[in-house]
């Protein structure tokens, strides 16, 4: 059960994709702990137990499933205030031996899935003429590590989606920003060779792993009421630029 430690997000409806584990799980719990109604989307079931948490098992890269889920969200919640577009899959492999199916999965989930969810959330933000969209990106966009051609490409595209949507949605007071997270110990990172990650970490201006508070700090900034003049921005953690 998530303990409530504050009310900063009371009355806010927050959609978090990829909420069943890793960073998304922590983000969902962060908003719950501060009073939000959280809607989690992921392919897997979720262990979060809270009266303020609603989970939808959905493939975000399947438009019919996304439409059905958002029809349900519209009926039950009426509007959405905040979207944290976090869900992603990663296969790190040299381009010449990258399985096409893995590359396609990354494009489908990390790019199309993020777009489909942002598209439907924006419609539900329009009702209140207020909203915050935060797309979770990666230091891979800037560092362009070997093996991450498709992953980094998808995350770079996510920044572009975010910046264009920032223009399109400014008329309804919806901001769109991107958070490029550095390495955080998670299931996704565990797929990669430790020595590769350690080498990347050592090259950062702040040479340590990110922790969840580093991430939630920037998310809190982006979604704040006071950040209404902050849009189409990307913040990287750890000094990545």
């Amino acid at each position: 059960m998530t303990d409530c430690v504050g009310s900063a997000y009371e009355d806010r409806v927050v959609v978090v994709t990829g909420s069943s584990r890793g960073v998304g799980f922590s983000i969902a719990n962060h908003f719950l702990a501060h009073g939000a109604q959280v809607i989690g989307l992921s392919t897997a079931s979720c262990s979060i137990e809270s009266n303020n948490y609603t989970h939808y098992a959905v493939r975000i890269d399947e438009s019919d499933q996304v439409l059905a889920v958002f029809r349900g969200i519209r009926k039950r919640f009426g509007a959405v205030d905040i979207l944290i577009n976090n869900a992603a899959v990663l296969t790190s492999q040299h381009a010449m031996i990258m399985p096409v199916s893995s590359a396609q999965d990354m494009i489908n989930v990390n790019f199309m899935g993020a777009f489909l969810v942002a598209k439907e959330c924006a419609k539900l933000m329009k009702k209140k003429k207020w909203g915050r969209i935060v797309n979770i990106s990666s230091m891979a966009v800037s560092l362009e590590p070997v093996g991450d051609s498709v992953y980094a490409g998808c995350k770079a595209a996510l920044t572009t989606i975010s910046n264009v949507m920032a223009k399109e949605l400014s008329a309804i007071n919806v901001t769109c920003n991107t958070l490029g997270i550095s390495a955080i110990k998670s299931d996704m990172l565990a797929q990669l060779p430790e020595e590769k990650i350690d080498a990347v970490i050592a090259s950062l201006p702040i040479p340590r792993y990110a922790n969840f508070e580093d991430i939630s700090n920037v998310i809190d900034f982006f979604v704040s009421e006071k950040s209404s003049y902050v849009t189409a921005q990307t913040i990287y953690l750890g000094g990545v630029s």
Partner: protein
Amino acid sequence: MSKKDAILEVIYEAIADLNDDKSEDEKVAATMDAILFGPESGLDSLDLVSLIVDVEGGASDLLDKSVSLSDDNAMDQDPVPFTSVASMLDYIMGLADEK
């Protein structure tokens, strides 16, 4: 209220919401023959997107199924469904009658 009237009400409500932010001379007529898209329409692109989103949402709630006026099927129509109030109504009625 008939299904046709209920759908028309959804469209007119969306037009009313759009008109809330407009001056008198910019308001869109809530009539069957109102032109929404093309050279004869007074709507800018953001107005049209806003109207389409509101009608899609309202019609989806009403019919309890996803209604899109801008998916591949809709865009294959001639005229496209959001050309006028009448064409919107016809297209949504067609979707409503689909099994």
